[in-house]
């Protein structure tokens, strides 16, 4: 492509092997006031 460079391929995981529910509750990490998931890790990816 002449005008566009892809830095990150599609990455929002929605397949049947997701939604295990093992990841950390977002508010338990550091903030306790702002519910963010952008900075969270997938528990499966961490293993």
């Amino acid at each position, binding site marked *: 492509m002449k005008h*566009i460079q892809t830095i990150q391929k599609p990455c929002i995981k929605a397949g049947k092997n997701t*939604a295990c529910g093992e990841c950390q509750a977002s508010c338990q990490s550091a903030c306790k006031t*702002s*519910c*963010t998931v952008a900075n969270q890790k997938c528990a499966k990816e961490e293993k």
Partner: protein
Amino acid sequence: MIHSFQFQNHNVLLDVESGAIHTVDEAAFAVVSAIEHGKDPYAVGVDAQTVSEVLSDLEELKSGGAFETETPTAPEILGGSAIKSMCLHVAHDCNLRCRYCFAATGDFHGERMLMSYETGKRALDLLMERSGTRQHLEVDLFGGEPLMNWDVCKQLVAYGRELEKQYNKIIHFTITTNCVALDDEKIDFINREMHNVVISLDGRKEIHDALRPTVNGKGSFDIILGNAKKLVAGRGEKEYYIRGTFTRENLDFLEDVKALTGFGFDQISIEPAVLPDDSPYSLLPEHLARIDAEYDALTEHYIDARKNADSWYNFFHFMFDPDGGPCLRKRINGCGAGTEYVAITPEGDIYPCHQFVGMQEYKLGTLDQPTLRSDLQEAFLGCNVCTKDTCKNCWAKYYCSGGCMANAVLYGGALETPHEISCHLMKKRIECAIGIYLSEQ
């Protein structure tokens, strides 16, 4: 849905529904901005031949599932709804009197009291019974100030370790502390048992002391800094965060980040205070441009600092790992307040999260009668980025996951109405995080 923005020398295009990120040249940026805002791409001052090329590039992206992607459908959580995370209010009391405290300086607008071991045990039993197939569970020792009830903290951790074996679970204990009452024995225990430690320290001494005085009105900075350094020095590879708060009194919070890194800390989270508009410390719409500029300055400082191992640090809200990030279900459901996540008070009352504590209309149940209010749980479960009008068409929905529901109720007016200032700040931080990610590629 797409979102385009400029970050330093990057023209960034985010395909919201797939998470794909592209950088584009000036002509393409003008074209995608026109498309994003429903305008004619041939009417943005770019020559027709170039517009045609850009549209061809975009069509190629689209066919590859990386541009204007359809909204995906998230699978249901395996094993159904379960409680996996618990905030244990072991102390509704505190040895500080922080001026911006959401917990009314520790008592949550109630009686100052400590949780008994018996109540804590029943809370952990409830967690085990309601955790379903989840193996990883989280328990945060919270307050007020949890170190004011230290013996019970230790007893509950020991009891939790027994339960882990009995139920084949893994409990990640964490503690959120101001460090005032730390000593060597507590440091050793915390560093042995706590998966993460959140340390409340605001940055510069004058900022911290002005807003985080002791009960008798003296500054707490000098006590806390030494204790926090000692605690962190013994953490090894285990997680910790220095968690500060900024208010309208320190909109130059980059200086607080610099102070914290100067003290030797490298895991930092500085959060905006969320307070009623009439608080002298609240952040108001007129502060937003100044805060945005400060996040930009922090971003520049962050990128430079991370080029050198000696000055490297991590800022909680700039962490962004698209490939290793959470799945769609997590992005939709967010914090799980009221469903996956609950808070337990010293009296044994159960609330959707620590910030709802004391709001009687949001009490889910009690440890004596742990049949949780299904109407409330359904309301929380049904309140997500797919259902909230404000979130449905917001580009940041899969990164903020709909925002803090307690702040929505307290300052947005309803569970379904996110707090606007928090939304603004979240979007700014996400743009910075994506920009930093691009810079570090």
